[in-house]
């Protein structure tokens, strides 16, 4: 046990250091080259050689890096929660259709204007209303999945149900797109490609607040999460108030996924892949270790993905969603192959 703890502390230290380095690299890299010395001075509160550099770093690159950290850790955490709650290694906000639900909420808001009239059009201009719509959408799908899960115990069916909810959402979005005009459609398509770079400091404050709130909610659930590893009946017999725990987990996952999807678009695979990567590194199921580790790894992964998406020293930027999928899909395949080996 002692050695376990030591290796965990070391892993945390290394990951923390890596996170700092990656964050710095992420801020350093971009379409305009800014010397690292100047970045360091901006970060420590001193003006750099060029005023426009100050502006770029303070109002664009730092918010983007913070967004990447929040999105990565938030999605990682919600993926971990889903995997424990649904007792399924393949669960995650994307697989269970929760991200699609958030998309659906945003689609109603952005595309629904032509169908439902002026109220939506007015609301669509507010950034908080997108967050609200996305959260409502993810709560809706998560609630529906939970209802179905009560009826069916088979874990494979749960995933299929999640996928079905995803395709229902996609279908509704298709119908909505069909009836909306080019401008609305463009706005929605850009949103759905995912982007970490569009947040003002004000929006970032709201984002941070909600992510922090859901994380604090989770702190009390660390123990119940551990006993949920043995299934709900055992968890209850060890003193877990199932209904309350389930409610807290659903609320925090819905909030996290909703607000992340709202601000950064439906980002795929991070929620699924990060918990698995973390479990491989730390080789434990204890949520006391896993929750912070997943948050660190998620932040790290998204910072790297974002740096790649920037295509350093070029004018081009790739959609972040493409990068995470390119990164994530092979990981999932590899996991499935590896899992097969364990089970046999």
């Amino acid at each position, binding site marked *: 046990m002692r050695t376990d703890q030591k290796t965990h502390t070391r892993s945390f230290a290394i990951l923390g250091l890596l996170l700092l380095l990656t964050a710095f690299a992420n801020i350093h890299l971009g379409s305009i080259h800014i010397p690292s010395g100047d970045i360091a001075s901006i970060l420590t509160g001193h003006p750099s050689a060029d005023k426009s550099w100050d502006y770029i770093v303070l109002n664009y690159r730092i918010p983007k890096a913070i967004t990447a950290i929040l999105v990565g850790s938030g999605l990682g955490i919600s993926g971990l929660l889903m995997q424990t709650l649904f007792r399924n290694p393949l669960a995650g906000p994307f697989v269970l259709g929760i991200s699609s639900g958030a998309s659906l909420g945003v689609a109603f808001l952005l595309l629904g204007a032509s169908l439902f009239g002026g109220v939506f059009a007015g609301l669509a201009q507010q950034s908080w209303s997108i967050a609200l719509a996305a959260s409502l959408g993810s709560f809706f799908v998560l609630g529906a999945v939970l209802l179905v899960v009560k009826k069916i115990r088979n874990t494979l069916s749960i995933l299929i149900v999640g996928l079905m909810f995803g395709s229902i959402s996609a279908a509704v979005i298709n119908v909505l797109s069909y009836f909306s005009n080019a401008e609305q459609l463009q706005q929605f398509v850009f949103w759905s490609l995912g982007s970490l770079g569009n947040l003002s400091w004000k929006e970032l404050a709201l984002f941070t607040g909600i992510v922090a709130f859901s994380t604090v909610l989770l702190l009390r659930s660390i123990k119940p999460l*551990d006993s949920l590893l*043995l299934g709900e*009946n055992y968890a209850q*017999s*060890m003193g877990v*108030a199932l209904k309350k725990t389930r409610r807290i987990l659903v609320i925090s996952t819905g909030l996290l996924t909703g607000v992340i999807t709202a601000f950064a678009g439906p980002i795929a695979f991070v929620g699924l892949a990060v918990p698995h990567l973390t479990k491989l590194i730390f080789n434990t*199921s204890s949520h006391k270790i896993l929750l912070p580790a997943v948050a660190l790894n998620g932040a790290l992964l998204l910072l790297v993905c974002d740096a790649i998406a920037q295509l350093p020293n070029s004018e081009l930027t790739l959609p972040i969603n493409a990068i995470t999928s390119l990164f994530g899909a092979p990981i999932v395949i590899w996991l499935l192959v590896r899992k097969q080996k364990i089970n046999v």
Partner: protein
Amino acid sequence: MSDVKKPTTTSILRSEQLAIGYCSKKGTHYVAENLNLRLERGQLVCLLGKNGVGKSTLLRTLSKTQHKLGGTIFLEDRELSEIDSSQLAQKMSLVLTEKIPESQLTVFELVALGRQPYTNWLGKLSSEDHQKVDTAIKQVKLEALSHRNYFELSDGQLQKVMIARALAQDTDLILLDEPTAHLDLHHTIEVFQLLKDLATKTNKTILISTHEVNLALALADDLWLMRPDKFVSGSTANLIESQDLQNLFPTEQLTFNEKLKQFVFRTQSTNTGLPSKK
């Protein structure tokens, strides 16, 4: 309630007019009704009955994992429905038949989960908790496997881990649903003997549903017999006298031998409904 012969304080669990079964859209399916059970402190009680008669349903209902359909259950004179799960966890522990989901828990960690009702919000183990977990692992003789991942274990070893987890929970009452289902005869006897010892030496009350009828007859203080038509309880001797054991299994292959006080099975060829070889 107070005019029964035995003082109520000795019975740790009892039920009045308990009805068990399932609710579904098609209606309510009663598995058993009018159950008036009593579980006395410090006893090892075996619940016997054929497959599908409702043993698991009864255990699940008594442990609040499943809703009762009627009647009342009392745990130490408090109504079970009024005890919340965190209080109940310090009084009653369970070993269930369900398969546990995949995870990377080690044997030690899994058994240590049994200490959750006593640990702080982070689940930190005190030295007393550590000691109780170690003792529980020792009792089922799995010390050598303590740091292995549980998915590396055989079904039988895992069964013992789950028993150790219940022991680590250190409750007065332990309910076990077919705890020896995956064990060979040697380990089955070992587990039964361990449970018997716990009941006599530490005054724990243990209720086991089992198909090991002969072991149950030999070791149990009391037997609960579940049949589709009725529920009877009593000591082996009582139940022999009342002819209830003789009628437990409605088949000719398996009969109760009163001299041996055991079930014996006959190997004579019977009509299996299959076409006979020519």
